[in-house]
């Protein structure tokens, strides 16, 4: 069994999954993956939906994505152990060491900050890579094209400014 699939096999499979999710045979809804976060925050911090209207707004979509996410964790785990053989505990991404710095503290602090901002940004825009890029642009939605354009530009500009141009020597 091959240990990796190429970008085009991945792209075709992702398109099929997206179509299945949209179809009345599957879920009859778009595919999304950032609404579960405020949904889980509501559960973990025991927030009362009566007091926080946003929790009422995400009640159904958050639950759907929560169940989907459990599946993604299971699918990701078994694939990493048995197929890609990539399962291992690690704190420092090789690429961070190569193009940023060697400090675990730096990586963890930036992970926390960027994880925080990632969700704020996704919830402000009403979607993420899944909900806007895949599902939204798959429907030729104008909102998702605006989001997609802004994200692509900011992503590449941040990449240029934040990381060093050459690989650092270790």
């Amino acid at each position: 069994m091959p240990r990796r699939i190429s970008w085009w096999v991945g792209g075709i499979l992702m398109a099929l999954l997206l179509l299945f999710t949209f179809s009345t045979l599957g879920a009859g809804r778009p595919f999304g993956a950032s609404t579960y976060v405020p949904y889980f925050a509501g559960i973990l911090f025991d927030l009362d939906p009566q007091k926080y209207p946003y929790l009422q707004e995400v009640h159904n979509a958050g639950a759907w994505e929560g169940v989907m996410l459990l599946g993604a964790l299971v699918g990701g785990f078994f694939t990493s152990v048995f197929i890609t053989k990539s399962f291992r505990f690690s704190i420092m991404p090789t690429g961070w060491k190569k193009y940023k710095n060697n400090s675990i503290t730096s990586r963890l602090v930036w992970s926390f900050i960027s994880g925080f901002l990632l969700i704020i940004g996704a919830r402000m825009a009403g979607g993420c890579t899944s909900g806007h890029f895949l599902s939204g642009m798959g429907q030729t939605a104008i909102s998702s094209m605006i989001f997609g354009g802004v994200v692509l530009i900011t992503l590449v500009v941040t990449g240029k400014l934040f990381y060093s141009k050459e690989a650092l020597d270790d």
Partner: protein
Amino acid sequence: MIDRILGMFTTVSQEPHGSVWIVFFIGVAFGVIVQYSRVDKFEKIAGFAMLRDTVVPKMLFLAIGIASIALYFMVEAGYASFHPKPVMLGGLIIGGIIFGAAMAIFGKCPGTGPISIAEGRIDVMVGAVGGIFGGLVFTVYFDSFKKIIGESLGKPTLVSLFQGHETLVVLIFGIGLIIISIMIPLREELDSEDLKQLES
């Protein structure tokens, strides 16, 4: 808390969007595809931000290109329906800037993050805790965020803007994206630690 977690399954089972098992299966398939194509890796997403790896944009554009054409004909045949998101300029632009910058630094997005936690990435776990706090802050200060997000300007789609030429427009859009996905030169930033495990 337990009853609210169990309530999650009840909510899904009462909704007309697939049984709990179908939704779970969609998640499993998503986890397998993302993991198998390795696009959950820091080197793939932050690597794309550094323009050292192009697997993410190639795969994304190909998937969108195929899906947009097929979905259009599925909707025409009555097997699916469109649910586009509203245009809210403040949210899309400011949210997009915050999201893009965070994605470049984190090297993950909300869908791929959990999948890389599933392969043992502890730094992403820390980022997920940050994400939960992001979800908390957004929920608590939703009224203030709503002011930045702005009013909805409707839910237009490219196809709906060209009435009478829908099929042509969706074919140009979809085929255009597929061609772009093929034309983007393939570059890969591989993780040497990751590859070492294949040798043993």
